[in-house]
């Protein structure tokens, strides 16, 4: 298990390969990457705040829970904080398992929990000001399926 809460940008390819190399006996590897989107072309940056200490513990607990629920070989979570530019990766989750169903389910579970239970707060900074991203009720609702 690796949890990295970092300001530095990460490389999806490098991280995917390193994770895959670390799980030679897994048949199935799933990755999820979240990217700073600029739909309207008005976003100049995203600012992410987090709760140092709690963040790492909360994510580690989520991974522990995933390992208990599914047959996983390993899991990885990288989540950035600080100032991110449009197009940059925000975070990634990777799961490895003997079978694809477990790898997919654990990755979705980790995503749903990261969305609503890991202490991160996003602020979108545009040309005409900044606004905290509101939590979606659909994200909260997604937790009920687990």
């Amino acid at each position, binding site marked *: 298990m690796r949890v990295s809460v970092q300001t530095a940008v990460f490389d999806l390819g490098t991280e995917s390969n390193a994770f895959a190399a670390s799980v030679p006996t897994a048949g199935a590897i799933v990755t999820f990457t979240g990217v700073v989107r600029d739909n309207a072309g008005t976003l100049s940056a995203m600012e992410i705040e987090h*709760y140092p200490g709690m963040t790492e513990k909360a994510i580690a607990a989520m991974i522990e829970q995933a390992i208990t629920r599914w047959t996983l070989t390993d899991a990885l979570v990288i989540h950035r904080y600080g100032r991110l530019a449009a197009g940059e990766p925000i*975070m990634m989750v990777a799961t490895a398992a003997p079978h694809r169903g477990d790898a997919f389910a654990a990755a979705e579970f980790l995503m749903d929990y990261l*969305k609503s239970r890991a202490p991160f707060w996003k602020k979108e900074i545009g040309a005409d000001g900044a606004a905290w991203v509101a*939590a979606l009720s659909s994200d909260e609702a997604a937790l009920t399926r687990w």
Partner: protein
Amino acid sequence: MIDVLYFAWVRERIGLPRERLDTAARTVRDLIAELTAREDRYALAFADLTSLRVALDQELSNFDAPLQGIREVAFFPPMTGG
């Protein structure tokens, strides 16, 4: 003495990221009442508890939880990670 941390717009409304308080509050709700009575900026931050979350010693908790033995209380809006 207890450390009280604020994040995101709670931090912005209160105007500081953390403070150390001497309080006799028995529950989170008591602490909020005490802070709200202090200054408008606290009243503003705690006006709508449904839009707030609380963590005690870095574990998500609830407003009726007792503060006994707790060293760190954090207030913040619903999380938006991922």
